[in-house]
């Protein structure tokens, strides 16, 4: 029996190792063939051309820009909502808002994609007079909405953990409630809030299905109102028909994405641990 539990206990480690090794093994051949520099910094992706080019800089930059944009919009809104839930809202109001946030987290990403595709994309096309509304801009908005719940719940947990004495001391010194919250509670919860931001980055950079429906999916260098392709959508959109070197290049893209994610994971873990310690 002990042995059985021992094996179960290791299952998570086994899965992580398995995924890492598998991705490295399948991702390396194409990088070796194309050349690391050409692959990472090539600005042109033409996988099905007669003379195929496999430069993924457009995807990397799009993923970075898209994530930054989503963070820029999502973090302030999420952070403010978390402060509201934790410090300002009456228990009864919080009991309404909190399930709403949970529900937002539970909505499948294809549903976000569908709404983005049917509401946001046409609206952006009309508002900015574009030939096609599917763009980096739409992807940023959708991502910003999708990362809200993670940012809210992690920040709220951090804010709730601030010792009451800190706040009481500040109030006793004559600070108003709002001043106390922003000058005392928020700084005290800063590492937890940083963790929330990092978690949001991880969510945004890994999302595929929602943005494949709103980003237009052309391998352009990123600009706000042009059709773009992310690292995730590059894998998802060509996997169905790719073969040979093209297919292997897709594995390499996944490997690059995986490396990004691992860096984010380690950062997140350090932040959360620092909070505990």
């Amino acid at each position, binding site marked *: *029996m*002990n042995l059985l*539990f*021992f094996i*179960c*206990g290791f*299952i*998570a480690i086994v*899965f*992580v190792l398995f*995924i890492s090794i*598998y*991705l490295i093994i399948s991702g390396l051949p194409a990088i070796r063939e194309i050349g690391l520099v050409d692959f990472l910094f090539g600005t042109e992706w033409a996988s099905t051309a007669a003379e195929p080019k496999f430069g993924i800089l457009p995807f990397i930059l799009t993923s970075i820009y898209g994530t930054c944009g989503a963070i820029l919009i999502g973090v302030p809104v*999420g952070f*403010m*909502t978390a*402060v*509201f839930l934790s410090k*300002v*809202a009456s228990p009864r109001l919080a009991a*309404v808002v909190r*399930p*709403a*946030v*949970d*529900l*937002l987290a*539970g*909505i*499948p*990403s*294809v*549903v*976000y*994609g*569908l*709404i983005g*595709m049917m*509401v946001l994309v046409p609206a952006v096309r009309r508002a900015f007079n574009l030939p096609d509304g599917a763009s980096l801009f739409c992807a940023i908005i959708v991502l910003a*909405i999708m990362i809200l719940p993670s940012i809210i719940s992690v920040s709220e947990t951090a804010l709730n953990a601030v010792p009451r004495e800190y706040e009481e001391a500040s109030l006793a010194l004559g600070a*108003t409630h*709002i*001043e106390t919250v922003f000058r005392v509670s928020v700084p005290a919860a800063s590492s937890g809030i940083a963790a929330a931001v990092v978690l949001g980055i*991880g969510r945004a950079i*890994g*999302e*595929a*299905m929602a943005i*494949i429906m709103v980003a237009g999916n052309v391998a352009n260098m990123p600009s706000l109102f042009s059709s773009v392709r992310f690292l*995730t959508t590059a*894998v*998802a959109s060509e996997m169905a028909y790719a073969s040979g070197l093209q297919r292997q290049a*897709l*594995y390499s893209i*996944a490997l690059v*994405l*995986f490396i990004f*994610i691992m860096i984010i994971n380690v950062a*997140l*873990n350090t932040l959360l641990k620092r909070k505990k310690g």
Partner: protein
Amino acid sequence: MEEKKIVMQPLSGRRRAYDRVLRFLLYFCAGLTCALLVFIIGYIFVRGLPHITWDFLSTAPSYINDTIGILPNITNTIYIVVVTLIIILPLGVGAAVYLTEYARNKKLVAAIEFATETLTGIPSIIFGLVGMLFFCELLGLQASLLAGSLTLVIATIPTIIRTTQESLKTVPESYREASLGLGAGKWHMIRTVVLPSSIDGIVTGCILAVGRIVGESAALLFTAGMGMSMNSFFSSFGNFIHSSGASLTVALYVYARERAEFDVAFAIAAILMLLTLVINLSASLVGRKLKRK
């Protein structure tokens, strides 16, 4: 004689403005979050609910009659949920039991917990890719429901491990001591005392895992495939191993992006929203029961 009074200085204009502006922003952002949710739910239901009919739910798509039904996608989703749960329940609960009851080496526990966190952070498109490479190609399962379920096992096991572990930690140490003191073996103690008193947490974990599975799409696109025809799994196991089947989420994606059948897509979205509502509600009900205890 002068009366002694404590006089509160009125707040200076700047401080009052600071207070007002921030308070407004707090309400505004919380309101925005709720408004977004209301809009999403409302829009999906308005566009989707009118298209849900009994025929839509109870038939397979037919090219001859030119009708679309989502029964195959419903059954596919149920199969994937059931198979995935059957596999992750023992594995996940076992892992949690090992972590809380057996493991003595702190570093080892930290490593396992780090791996679990990492697994939570990996995007589903990566699970989908590795699942496709390993289960579909290397093991020769092709794009099938089994391959999809196995991929989701990897993706959802952290949920079960974490929630079970949390609830195992809340079982009072005295329960364990009492059981061991009466002469029970360790396994007997876990089976008869520890697990039954943390059943709520395990159930919550299952509900959350079901939510994750139902909402999953990127990991299933290439592992479970896009088959829209009816699979009869009871007649032969071969069907389950070899036939591809689109879950509700994948069907939504296919109908919206590749076939431009937006009414169908919205109807599926409405069903998914209803499922999400039910799952969230039951998770919070079980969670509340757990807290009361």
